[in-house]
Every structure is written in C-alpha cells, then in structure tokens.
C-alpha cells in the first residue's frame, strides 16, 4: 500500500520503505533482481539491457537504446543530393560502403540516371571490402565476449590491410565518402587494386588458415555457444531477423542474390545458410561469408571493365519515390527516399537490420543463464550506429 500526496494537481505514489534484516533477507533473495547490462559493460557498447534475473536465470530482458541517436534521417533533409552521403555513411562507420550504395541507387532510380558499368564493379569491390572489414570485427568481438581477446587482435591485423586499400582509394580509412549518386568519386588506380589484392591474399593465405585452425570447431567455444539462443526457421521470419542471424536459421535470404544490384548479378557466389539457428551457427555464417566475400572481390577485380567511373547527376531531381534494399554487412538495409523536385532529399527513411535484430532479444533471452546474455547479444551481430541512427 502506498501513501498519496496531492500537490499542485499531481499525485505522487511513494512506496513504503522497509528495513530488511535477518530472516527476511532470504525472501529478498527469491525476489527478482534487475541488473543493468550496459552502458558500461565491455561487450554491450552504447546501449543498456535491463535484465531481470531470478538467481542465475534470466526472466525478462528489456533493451534500452538511444544513447547514440544522431538524427541522421533528419540531417539528410538539409543536404543536397550529393553531399547527403556523409550523413548516410555514418549510420555505421564499419561498413560505410553498403549504406552509401543503397542511398545512391535510390537517388539514381528517382533521377533516372544510369550508372556506368565500371562504377558498378568498383561499388561491388568496395562493398565486399566493407563486408569483410565488418565481419572480421564481428568474429573478433564474438569470441571477445567469451573472454578471449586474441582473435580480435588477429582480425584487426587483417582489417588494417583493407583499410590501407580504402585509404589509397579515397584518402580516408573509415569515413570514406567515396560512393555518390551517379557513380563513384575516384578512379581506381593500379595501386588501389594492388593493395586490395594484397589484402585479400593476406586474408586467404594468412588469416583464414590460422584463425580457422584455432577458433573454428573449437570445443570450448562450442560448449558456450551450441544450442544457445535457438531460433526456428518460422520464428526467425516472424521476428523479422535480418542478415547472418536470419541465414543461420535456414532462410536463404540474400538481397545480392534475390534482387541483384551493382555488379552482383554477373558474379558467381553462393548464399551461406545453416539449419541450427543457434549462436554457433550465426558465428559460422559470418565466418563462411568472409571466405565468400574474398572470392567475390577477386572476381570483380578480374572483370573490371574500362570506361567512365562517374556520370553527371542533376542538381534538381524530379519528384518521386524509391525504395531500395541492399545487402549490408549486417543484413538487409532499406532506403525509402522521397524527392519533391528540390535540390536535396525531401525525406529519407532507413530500415536498419540491427534494429530488427534487437527486438528478437527479449524472446531469445528468456530462461537462459545470465552468462549466455553476452553470447546471444554478440551472436546477433548488431551495430549501435544503425540501431539509433
């Protein structure tokens, strides 16, 4: 029972405080305890999970987001068609090429601009490079939450080679701002191709054998992750999972294959799926996609055509709408772009895969042990940049 105080029209209900001691403490231990998993947790990133635990068992989980909200969708409305890319790419800094490609394709659809073939191929190379960079961090951080930090360092060594290639191409390592509506901003030099090939060589010859020997099929890792956070095929579709998390449940959904964009229609690759649907399967999907992406880069470099890399994009774009999906590193990223005939976008709505994955957490984390919370969280492969946008 609470006592109520009426002041200035408001009613405050204050719970009675009661000192607990002696035998009553035993009763308190049986009560639910709310834990704040994050914002300060090393694995959580800038978000908080409210975790209610009964002893060691998780009863309920409630994600609390909004710590890195930057209003990217609103900021795009104040930009021109070209320079909106700097806001779009900051959805997530790790794979910035995927988001820029999606936005550019949407803008080209409205304007009716056809991109030269060379630009398509360069976009493909960059997108796959971004995917590899992102997957490397995903692999490293998954094993990292289990307490082993060596794979993250190995992954960062391999990632550095790709960042070198991006720096040669665009002048920046992370926020490259290199894909614009109408093509790509820079001509791919010989040095860029060379650096990209050396990066892929390092990945295939050094990283993959060494990492695969130790951290794939690892018995300790399997004990922690096999059978944890299981999602069936039907339930995965209902929950609206995206990307590697969806493919690990046996749904072969890949925008690159289903609705080919850029140069993916002309390249040969396969969609990786696993049937188990647990944390370990999601980890393996990321691992095998990494190997597949390296092959795509090699094919795209071989088939790189001659010609222009950029066409002129009009300053004013006719009124219209476009919805474009791209297969980003973390799943299907949707762009709903609206033009009202002005010099910049009227509205941009981004549908982010990590946001979709986040709301599967409350169901997946029911009746698991507290130690499984970081494993499930890391296996869903989320980025806080595109949860909040």
């Amino acid at each position: 029972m609470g006592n109520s105080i009426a002041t200035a029209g408001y009613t405050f209900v204050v719970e009675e405080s009661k000192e607990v001691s002696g035998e009553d403490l035993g009763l308190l231990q049986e009560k639910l305890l709310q834990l704040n998993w994050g914002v300060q947790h090393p694995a959580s990133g800038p978000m908080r999970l409210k975790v209610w635990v009964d002893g060691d068992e998780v009863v309920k989980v409630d994600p609390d987001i909004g710590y890195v909200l930057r209003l990217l969708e609103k900021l795009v409305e104040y930009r021109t068609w070209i320079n909106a890319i700097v806001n779009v790419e900051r959805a997530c800094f790790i794979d910035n090429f995927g988001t820029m490609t999606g936005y550019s394709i949407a803008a080209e659809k409205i304007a009716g601009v056809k991109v030269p073939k060379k630009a398509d191929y360069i976009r493909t190379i960059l997108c796959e490079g971004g995917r590899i960079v992102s997957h490397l961090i995903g692999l490293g951080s998954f094993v990292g939450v289990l307490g082993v930090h060596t794979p993250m360092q190995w992954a960062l060594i391999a990632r550095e080679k790709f960042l070198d290639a991006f720096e040669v191409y665009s002048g920046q390592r992370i926020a490259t701002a290199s894909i614009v509506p109408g093509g790509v901003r820079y001509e791919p030099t010989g040095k860029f191709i060379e650096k990209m090939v050396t990066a892929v060589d390092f990945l295939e010859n050094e990283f993959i054998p060494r990492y695969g020997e130790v951290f794939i099929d690892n018995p300790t890792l399997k004990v922690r992750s096999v059978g944890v956070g299981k999602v069936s095929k039907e339930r995965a579709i209902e929950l609206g999972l995206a990307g590697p998390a969806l493919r690990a449940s046996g749904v072969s959904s890949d925008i690159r294959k289903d609705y080919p964009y850029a140069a993916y229609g002309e390249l040969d690759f396969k969609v990786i799926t696993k049937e188990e649907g647990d944390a370990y399967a999601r980890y393996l999907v990321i691992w095998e996609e990494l190997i597949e992406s390296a092959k795509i880069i090699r094919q795209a470099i071989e088939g790189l055509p001659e010609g222009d890399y950029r066409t002129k994009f009009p300053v004013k774009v006719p009124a219209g709408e476009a919805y474009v999906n791209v297969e980003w590193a973390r799943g299907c990223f949707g762009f709903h772009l609206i033009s009202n005939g002005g010099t910049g976008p009227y509205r941009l709505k981004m549908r982010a895969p990590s946001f979709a994955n986040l709301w599967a957490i409350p169901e997946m984390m029911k009746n698991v042990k507290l130690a499984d919370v970081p494993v499930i969280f890391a296996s869903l492969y989320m980025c806080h940049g595109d949860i909040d946008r």
Partner: protein
Amino acid sequence: MEIKETLLLPIEATKKVIRVTKALFAPKATEIWWDKGIRRELRYRGKHVIKADLCIGCSMCARACPVNCIEMVPTGVKKPRAVPKVRANECIFCGLCEDACPTKPEKAIKLTDEYRMIVEPGTWDNLSKFIFEPENLEEAIEKAKKMEELLEKKKQEALKKKQQAAAKKKEEK
C-alpha cells in the same frame, strides 16, 4: 678474495665506460615523429589550400559543403567577388568542395597531403579562430584592381572614340 676484487675493479670500470660510450652512439629508441614514416597517399584529404588568383568566386564549394563550414568572404573587387574561408574545426575533410570547384585545369580549393594541424592551446576560442584562409589574397586583389582599371580605361577610350565619331558624322552632315 679482496685483493682479487680490487684487481678486477679497473676491468669493470672500463667495461662500464665502453657500455656508456656504446649507448651514446647507438640509435635512439624514440624518434621525432613528423620527420618520416607517416604514409600519405595520393588522395589523402588533409589541410585545404585555397588559391585566390584562381578563384572565380562562384561559391559552389560553400554550397557543396555538407557541414556549412565554408564562408564566402567578399573581397571588394568584381572578380573574384568573394573567396572561400574554411572553418577548420568544423570541417570533416570529405573533399566534396574540391569536387565541386569548376576551375580548370587546377582547382582553386584543394585538399593537400598536409596533415599537421596544430592548435595550441586547444581551447574553444583558439579552435574557432583556426581557419584556412586563401593564399596570396592581397596580390590577387591588387591584380584584379589593376585589371579593372585597365578595363575602365579601355571602356572610356572606346566611349571617347564613339563620341568623336558621332561628332564627326554630325559635322559632315
């Protein structure tokens, strides 16, 4: 034993002297960082260079800037009417201003491979004063003024010639 130790003393002393002299001439463990070693690629996006004599004052760079950090400062002459000034602490070094610049073959605003940008002390006041300004602005203005004077002289001469011709025609009539 003591005698032996005393005998060994000069040997140890010489050993120490040799060690110190070696350390003096050995390469240092730490080096000054800006002299070498940092890679700058072909398209490195660093400090801006603005050339006032090339600028035509179209303000395309200011319109292309996504963070509105480029300000067009009026010069007082007709060409260029205004030159860009970049507020460096707001700039995100995306290089879109360089893409937008229409001057050919050399761009008037350019991102160079100069990466050393030091503000000391790094207070807000100092940072807001950290601005990339156009090079040779005064020379360019003087040049433009001279050109304007020349043009005006030519115009006046042409006017005079016209008037004279008109007067001659009237006289002939």
